[in-house]
């Protein structure tokens, strides 16, 4: 296992970067935050494409940068693979030549993987002799991922690789990245500002804002915290719940998911019993009732306990609920007062939408 340790400080005009984190081999660590949070600056610093004024970056037992010791390896000597937002395939080289461009590095150490295996996994065998200008956006990004990967890096840096793709293509590439993750032992650092990608890929999330690390931990720990809501894109905040498939309700085309706090019904997922499913419940999709409502179209209703009520933000308040797992509801301040909600109260949470985010094969 190769781990990455980052301690990065630098000043760019009025922007001040001061970030410290580590990433484990075999895991996807997501740098998450709004644009301007300094995510790309961190990535470029790791790659050696940008100079830091102060800090230390080490990869396994190799020091890539150390301001105290005066170490600053050139990008080509860092052993990194970088997937850029815009693919950056070399237009004068074929897909095959692009893929093999980084293989020179292999004279230094024997190649750990297998060219054909990667080509098959990314499904690019049929386009090897084509030039980049003839590829679709999704194909380009797959080649870019393969190219970075085939250079035999000790860390894979992916800077918003999906940002220019449509949703269908995004899902397709995410699938490939998940598969890739399963076969490598290097750390993968992935930058995004999409909650969706965090939930589908992340083993660990580093939440960045204004050049600083605001929080880090599992997606569960980070994405559900109401105090972090301002750093996450508005309205996208919510809770992530890890569930397993309990049974299929074939007659209603529903799937019943079990989690410690009860069961959730979602539109049918094609997965067998016991499959781990990660779902997201956005706080604005959760309504509260003090008595059990009868005759209501909402399928998912849980008995929960109120843990805390936030001070009002405009018209709304955030209510943190205990449903054996943390759950959050965003309701109006007016409702909170009229229902006379208090901490410790037992209420019913009505969940309008459960978004199925990721499927992990265990």
């Amino acid at each position, binding site marked *: 296992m190769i781990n990455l340790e980052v301690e990065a400080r630098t000043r760019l005009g009025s922007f001040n970067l001061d970030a410290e984190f580590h990433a484990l081999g075999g895991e996807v660590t997501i740098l998450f935050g709004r644009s301007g949070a300094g995510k790309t600056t961190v990535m470029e610093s790791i790659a050696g494409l940008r100079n830091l004024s102060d800090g230390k970056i080490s990869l396994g037992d190799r020091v890539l940068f150390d301001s105290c010791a005066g170490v600053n390896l050139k990008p080509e000597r860092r052993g990194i693979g970088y997937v850029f937002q815009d693919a950056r395939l070399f237009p004068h080289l074929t897909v095959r030549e692009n893929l093999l461009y980084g293989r020179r590095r292999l004279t230094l150490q024997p190649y750990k993987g297998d060219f054909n295996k990667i080509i098959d996994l990314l499904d690019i065998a049929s386009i090897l002799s084509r030039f980049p200008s003839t590829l679709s956006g999704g194909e380009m990004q797959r080649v870019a991922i393969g190219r970075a990967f085939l*250079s035999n890096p000790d860390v894979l840096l992916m800077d918003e690789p999906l940002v220019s793709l449509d949703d269908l293509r995004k899902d397709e590439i995410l699938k490939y990245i998940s598969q890739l993750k399963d076969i490598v032992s290097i750390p993968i650092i992935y930058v995004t500002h999409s909650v969706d990608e965090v939930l589908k890929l992340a083993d660990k999330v580093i939440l960045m804002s204004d050049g600083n690390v605001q929080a880090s931990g599992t997606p569960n720990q980070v994405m559900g915290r109401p105090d972090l809501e301002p750093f996450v894109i508005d309205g996208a905040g919510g809770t992530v719940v890890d569930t397993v498939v309990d049974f299929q309700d074939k007659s209603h085309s529903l799937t019943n998911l079990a989690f410690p706090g009860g069961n959730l019904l979602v539109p049918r997922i094609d997965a067998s019993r016991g499959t781990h499913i990660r779902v997201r419940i956005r706080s604005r999709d959760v309504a509260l009732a003090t008595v059990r409502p009868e005759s209501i179209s909402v399928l998912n209703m849980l008995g929960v306990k109120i843990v805390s009520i936030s001070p009002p933000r405009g018209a709304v308040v955030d209510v943190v609920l205990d449903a054996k797992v943390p759950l959050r509801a965003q309701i109006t301040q007016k409702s909170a007062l009229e229902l006379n909600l208090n901490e410790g109260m037992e209420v019913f949470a009505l969940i309008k939408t459960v978004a199925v985010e990721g499927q992990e094969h265990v």
Partner: protein
Amino acid sequence: MLTALEWEAIQLSLRISFWAVFISLPFGVGIAWVLGRYNFPGKSFLDAFVNAPLVIPPVALGYILLVLFGRTGLFGRVLEDWLGVSLVFTWEGASLASAIVSFPLLVRSIRISVENLDQGLEKAARTLGANPIRTFFTISLPLIWPGMLAGITLAFARCVGEFGATITFASNIPGETRTLPLALYTVIEMPGGESAALRLMIFSVVLAFIALFLSEFLARRSRKKFRSN
């Protein structure tokens, strides 16, 4: 079909132009790279200096060369004393004159491609383990090649047409510096040289078109390989 004198003039024109462009190409790429990529104090001065031959009358340029590279000139004396070489009245001198006159055209075309070159691609190459030298030769140079090709063609055509600086610096010596334009000028000045002049004029035009078609063909072939964005 061609008379010996005509053939001589054509060969001389091609040889002088070839060496002029060949020798100035590395300098052209270097200067275009520096001007297209970097900002530094004195950049506008360098820019003006490189482009000066476009606006200075060629005869004046030839005279400047004569002053600098003549037997008693600043550089001429050094060449004469140390290497025993003199450029005045030689075909090498004609090449130098052509190179200087055509240099701005060479730099301009290459500079545009250098400015359009996506530095992100070079960064990508670095992350793939290529050092700056390998990056330059495998990524940058192939990508500015269409611009270089355009520059080479333009500069070559300008060299073939060079007259003023050449006749001033290298004179009009048959078999040595009498290129097509100089030969054409010579026969026009001679009484009864009209038909010879007509033939030389046609050769000049044909040569120019061949150069144009050749460059268009090469450009199309490299475009076919990749559509640069």
